[in-house]
C-alpha cells in the first residue's frame, strides 16, 4: 500500500521552472466565512511513497457531519520503485461550503482509504 506522507490544503501549488522545486502558496486549514452557503477554490497537495505500480488515485471532498461527497478528483500515478516518492496536486474549482462545520479531503488509492486532512469552515466574527 502507498504511504501518505503529507497532505495539505493551500491556495496554489507551483513548481519552480528553473529548479523544479515545489512551492505551496497559502497553506490553511480554516476558512472564515462571512455568509453561508459559499464556495471557495482550494488546491490539495499530496506526497506519497512506498508504492510500486499503477494507482488510480482519488481525492474526495466530504462534508463530515453528513458524509456527503461534495466533489472529487481523479488522477493516475505510476510508481517505479517503493523507494521514490511522488508529489501530486489537485487544483479544485470553487468548492461548495454549504454550512459551518468540518470538511475532509480523503485520499484513496485503488479504492483503499489512505488518510486525509480537514478544513474547518467557521462563521467570521464581525468586529465592533
Amino acid at each position, binding site marked *: *500500500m*502507498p*504511504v*501518505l506522507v503529507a497532505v495539505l490544503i493551500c491556495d496554489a*501549488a507551483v*513548481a*519552480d*521552472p*528553473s*529548479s*523544479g*522545486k*515545489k512551492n505551496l502558496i497559502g497553506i490553511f486549514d480554516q476558512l472564515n466565512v462571512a455568509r453561508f*452557503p*459559499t*464556495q471557495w477554490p482550494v488546491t*490539495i497537495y499530496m506526497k506519497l511513497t*512506498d508504492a510500486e505500480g499503477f494507482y488510480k*488515485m*482519488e*481525492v474526495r471532498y*466530504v*462534508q*463530515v*457531519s*453528513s*458524509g*456527503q*461527497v*461534495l*466533489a*472529487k*478528483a*481523479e*488522477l493516475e*500515478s505510476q510508481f517505479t520503485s517503493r523507494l521514490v516518492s*511522488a*508529489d*501530486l*496536486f*489537485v*487544483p*479544485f*474549482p470553487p*468548492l*461548495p461550503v*454549504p*454550512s459551518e462545520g*468540518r470538511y*475532509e479531503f480523503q485520499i484513496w*488509492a485503488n*479504492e*483503499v*482509504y*489512505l*488518510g486525509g486532512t480537514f478544513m474547518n469552515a467557521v462563521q467570521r466574527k464581525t468586529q465592533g
Partner: protein
Amino acid sequence: MAQVTEIQRFPPQKADEEVAHERDFVRGVPAGLLSLEAAIIAILDLVLPDEILLGTVRDGRLRVRVPIRVRFRREDQHVVAEAAELDEFGFGANLSEALADLQDAIGELYFTLEREQGRLGPDLRRVWTVLQQKLMRRL
C-alpha cells in the same frame, strides 16, 4: 521581524549545475463537483458507505500491508465502524470520527497482542495472526 518585500526568481540553472529537485508534479483533474444548490439539498441525511478498505492506521510505527475491510452502521446518534476480521470497533458522531477511533483501536490492539502473544487464547491468537498479515512494524 524582517519582511520580504520582493521575491526574486533565481536565474535558470546551467546543465552542469547541481539541481536539488526536479521531479515533476502529478496533476489531478476534478472529476465531479456538486453545485452549491445541490450540496445544500444533499446534506439533509447522513450518508454512510456500507464498507470501505482501510489502508492506514493512525500510528506512525505501523504500516498497512493488506487493506482492512471496514463496515459502517448507525446506532442511535452514533456511527459504528467495524473491522469484523479483527473483532474491533470504532465509534463516533460521524464516519470520520468512527474511522479514526477504529484506527486508534487497531493500533492499540496490535501492540497489546504483540506484548502478550505468549499468553493468548485461541480467539486472540487468531486475531494476532490476522493482524500480522495486515500490518507490519515500520523499520
